[in-house]
């Protein structure tokens, strides 16, 4: 099982796309070695725009490129890509529905050293709030590569949430990525956990732990956080007694909100593993933060136990 860095997969895929389609362009806000847009810059300098430390201009500039038929990818840390340029994404890109992909790297707590200013924990919520915006959070290399291609082919705006850490491939080799499709990654009939991005790996680990306790946990990967059909999410809960969500994001406006809205009136217990309404902080390791904010596989397993007890 290959372990891949998701930013590197993103960067390599963008270069491959650039070779296939001369309309693909990339814009970077002085973080090219982190976002890995530096690979595209080296391959296609004419189609790479170094926009310096000016994310607002970068977003609107990308809208202009899209208006001439270009397929634009704008790159920065997730906090700045979505937060600093929010109004530009909303109005320059979102209202006209342009083909611009906002790529936010170092998402969640993955930039562990830099602290709360650099840890995007509300990016999914603010991007999901934009009408017509597609929000994708890949969990591994194959899903990232497929998501980049899907974003380029999608006519409207996309937010691509990129986690900085390395992750093992878990996507089934026969799995075709389609925007908007959650799917069962591991079968189970007692409870279901809906997970996205890094949390998919922790959910799989939790499922393994719970097997030893006689609990069969279904793991559903939700790579598209918008759009996702309520009916699809409800169908994926068929037969289970309890539901858990797991996201490396604030509890407000992310996957937990998506699932709870979809299941409103369902009656079965739902537990949400997420960052509470608090800021991130610096830590010596990523693991320290995952533990502190109660996002571990153990936390997911415990949430499943609690939900099943309520069932």
């Amino acid at each position, binding site marked *: 099982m290959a372990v891949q860095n998701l930013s590197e997969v993103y960067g390599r895929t963008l270069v491959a796309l650039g070779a296939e389609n001369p309309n693909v*362009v990339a814009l970077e806000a002085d973080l090219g070695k982190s976002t890995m847009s530096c690979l595209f810059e080296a391959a296609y300098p*004419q*189609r790479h*725009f170094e*926009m*310096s430390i*000016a994310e*607002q*201009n970068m*977003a*609107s*500039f*990308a*809208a*202009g*490129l*899209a*208006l*001439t*038929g*270009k397929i634009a990818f704008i790159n920065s840390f997730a906090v700045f890509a979505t937060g600093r340029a929010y*109004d*530009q994404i*909303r*109005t*320059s890109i979102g*209202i*006209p*529905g342009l083909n611009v992909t906002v790529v936010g790297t170092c998402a969640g707590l993955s930039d562990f050293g830099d602290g709360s200013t650099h840890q995007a924990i509300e990016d999914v919520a603010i991007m999901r709030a934009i009408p017509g915006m597609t929000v994708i959070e890949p969990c591994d290399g194959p899903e990232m590569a497929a998501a980049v291609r899907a974003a380029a082919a999608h006519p409207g705006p996309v937010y691509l949430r990129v986690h900085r850490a390395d992750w093992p491939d878990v996507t089934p080799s026969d799995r075709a990525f389609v925007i908007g499709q959650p799917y069962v990654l591991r079968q189970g009939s007692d409870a279901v956990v809906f997970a996205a991005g890094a949390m998919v790996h922790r959910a799989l680990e939790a499922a393994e732990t719970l097997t030893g306790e006689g609990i069969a946990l279904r793991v559903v990967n939700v790579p598209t956080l918008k759009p996702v059909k309520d009916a699809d999410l409800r169908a994926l809960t068929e037969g289970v007694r309890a539901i858990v969500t797991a996201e490396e994001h604030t509890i407000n406006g992310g996957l937990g909100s998506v699932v709870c809205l979809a299941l409103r009136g369902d009656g079965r217990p739902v537990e949400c593993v997420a960052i509470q309404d608090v800021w991130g902080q610096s830590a010596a390791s990523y693991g320290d933060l995952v533990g502190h904010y109660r996002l571990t596989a153990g936390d997911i397993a415990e949430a499943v136990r609690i939900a099943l007890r309520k069932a």
Partner: protein
Amino acid sequence: MDATIAFLEGKARALRRKIVREIGWGKKGHLGGSCSAADLVTALYFGKMRIDPRNPGWPDRDRFLLSKGHGALVQYAALAELGFFPEAELDRVKTLGSILQGHPDRKLCPGIEANTGSLGHGLSIACGIAAGLRLDGRKSKVYVLVGDGEQSEGQIWEAAMAAKAFKLDNLVAILDRNRLQAMGPIVERFDSNPHADKWAAFGWRVIEIDGHDMRQIVGALDAADQGGPTVIVANTVKGKGIAFAENNPAFHNGVMTKEQYEQALAALAA
């Protein structure tokens, strides 16, 4: 030349009549900033720009973006006069389902290039279009009208640096320097003067003109073809051509009485 100038001055009067008609009486509308830009917009749409009203998406057209999107009424007036959409649409401005929104919407209105209205965006979008056109080897020019109140937006200066960095010589910014923002004189707020010096310091070619002198406008637009990025600092009067609205902050987004409405139309009669 004299005939061209007279033609353009006639068109500018026609646009101002349309602006007054779009607002009507007893209703709010951005009269001041639409009229300050009317001569500039006229010179672009009826003189300088290569456009085709029957083919708004013509790839080789010149582009015009209204970064000060609240001045939409003057752009709608020009597009209607050129036949981009039926003139009757002008009576439906800002009504439910209209193609003519309070601020320009490219998905709804033929001839609109970009969605503007949140100030500061348009210059950046124009830069991106200029860069995209250059990648495609097209000779089209990109014109973008910015307000002087809008100069307070930091994004304007991000875009100014980008245009210089990417040597966008197909980009022309026109600064509608009408000296008033929504709540009053710019000099009493964040005084964005001196405009010409600021733009020059950012590496732009600067041409300063009287933004209501059609001869100067035409000359500046032609001069802007000689390299860039170029900014034309156009000194204008907010509400120009509507006596009661000239230099009157109340008509940034004001309401005309029936008497004022009729007075404005009479003064602008063909």
